[in-house]
């Protein structure tokens, strides 16, 4: 008998009875964001979970992101985004970009091997979805082009459409098709650790800082 057969057979023999029914998921008060494809249909389930506490999602997202160690800024346009990056990281030698708004010294599309990203000072990417309660942005292989950009860059800058923020993780999972990309990550602030006496330190292994710039994409190529 193969290990597979043996395990499945043992599980079948031992599954507890009576069986327990799968509860329906009462999802959150999802707000239509409608800016991208790759999302499933909007939620129609009953709102059960309170949405953004204390008003609209964006301020809540910013507070939560800050609590996770990240920062966020409003930028008026592409030029303002580039200026903000230059202002925040004046000493940066290698800016590696995955977005059209910021050319960068290096285009991630040109990278052949993830190890080439070991010297990146600032990575620039665009997220298609933010989650207010977690202060998190969703990034996939399509957004990052080379997944390692999100974790090898010393500093990460994430462009986010301010209207693409949902209240809770329930909303995010209802909208996203997580299986559509081989890699998808909710990133909430920079890399962190509390492993030494519980002291919170940012920049453990991945990005030292995470900055969100609120900027709608100039070309809504995602829209149907």
């Amino acid at each position, binding site marked *: 008998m193969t290990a597979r057969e043996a395990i499945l057979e043992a599980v079948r023999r031992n599954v507890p009875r009576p069986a327990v029914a799968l509860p329906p998921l009462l999802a959150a008060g999802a707000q239509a964001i409608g800016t991208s494809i790759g999302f499933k249909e909007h939620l129609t389930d009953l709102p*059960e979970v309170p949405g953004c506490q204390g008003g609209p999602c964006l301020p809540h997202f910013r507070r939560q992101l800050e609590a996770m160690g990240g920062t966020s800024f409003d930028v008026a346009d592409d030029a303002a985004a580039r200026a903000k990056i230059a202002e925040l990281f004046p000493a940066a030698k290698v800016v590696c970009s995955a977005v059209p708004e910021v050319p960068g010294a290096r285009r991630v599309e040109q990278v052949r091997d993830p190890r080439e990203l070991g010297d990146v000072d600032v990575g620039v990417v665009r997220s298609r979805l933010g989650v207010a309660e977690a202060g998190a942005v969703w990034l996939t292989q399509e957004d990052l082009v080379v997944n390692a950009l999100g974790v090898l860059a010393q500093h990460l800058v994430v462009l986010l459409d301010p209207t693409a923020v949902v209240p809770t993780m329930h909303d995010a999972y209802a909208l996203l098709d997580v299986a559509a990309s081989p890699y998808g990550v909710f990133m909430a602030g920079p*890399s962190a650790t509390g492993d030494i006496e519980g002291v919170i330190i940012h920049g453990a292994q991945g990005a030292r800082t995470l900055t969100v710039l609120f900027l709608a994409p100039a070309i809504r190529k995602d829209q149907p």
Partner: protein
Amino acid sequence: MMRAVDPEARAARFIALEEHESTHDRVVWGMRQHRDKAVAGVPEWEKLRELASQIKEHTLTHLDRYLEQFEENATRLGTHVHWARDAPEHNATVYDILQAHGVRSLIKSKSMLQEECGMTPYLEKRGITVTESDLGERIQQLSHEPPSHIVVPAIHKLRTDVAQLFAREIGSDPGNADPHYLAEAMRGNARPRFLAADAAMTGANFAVAETGGFVVCTNEGNADIGASVPPLHVASIGIEKLIPRARDLGVFIRMLSRSALGTAITQYTSHFHGPRRGGELHVVLVDDTRSERLGSPDFWHALKCIRCGACMNTCPVYRRGGGLSYGATYSGPIGVILDPGFDLEKYRELPFHSSLCGSCTEVCPVKIDISDQIYKWRRVVAAKGMLRLTKRVGMSALGATLGHPTAFHAAESVSETALAHLPRFALYNALNPWGRHRELPAVPRRTFRQWYLEHRAKSGD
């Protein structure tokens, strides 16, 4: 016969290190307080606990189907799926994969399952360099110790311990015990290892049957670096990690880090569905006594565990005695109910390393009846005749007294009189371990029964 772990003696050694014990207690209790604050911000918390518990129970009562579904979908995405009955089979499977790819150096992120399997020493013996990438786990690897906590593996250590360790092992300044400096020193040491590794290994927090993918939660992003830099990614997944739907993740992700550290989410919540561009992905589905536990009416609920560590942070015994006192892969209350399932003989003392206060059950996000299971393991140990002599004698005297009301009332009055008049040394002696760190409360004038009888007489009923 393997000698049983003696958690009391091991805890006593930790408690003797006064600064370690007090710092550990403070830091771990701090995590519990952060958890309370985070939970208070989620009014639907109890509803989430109920949902999480039901989803896990549903999955476990249909586990064969979900395993097959996961395998089918994962395979469709291009993931290689392997199965392992036990730890040796897991390790051999992993080694075969690594060998087939000519892997010499491996970067791994924290996996309790790989700890459980003793994978690292197994691979090291076969010439593979294994580097832990989680800071706490790396500290433990360099110390040749198992993790003392599921979430923060080196939390029993002081910053000065880490400063000395890093000075010896990676050449940092022995006089600098600033945690920021120490974390930076390890970042500098780990980066080249990440870039030079031939393969990465991770565990998984959740595996989703309907999609064939899995989710890894870290705060350092170390699993993500591993999965994105070397071309080969191997994940070890316990068969109990399955959940049915991607949407179920909303429930669990909202609870995991709030329960663990009191943050709304881990910094990285990473979803892997098939190999990344230019990469190869393997998963090893591991049983290792889980299917057997599934058949135990008293203990199968422990398989619901999502490894958040909340039960450890709240446990008065864990906080004082430290995680290494359990002498096992899993420590704290969840360890007390998991470890005897792996080796009853070795871990027979663990169910007694608890005050049965029940706080673990209260904070468990998936509603595992942890304290009830601790009690049930005590019964198993007693039924197998494995109780220690001191417990057997004490218990049978107690049983005789509690079993006979007259004897109990007599004993009650006598002991209270005795407590009030016995010299102090009679209570605080070497034979009474409970007296070592405690003072008794003032003795009431009357027993509750005496008071009750008087008042019943007065009220006339």
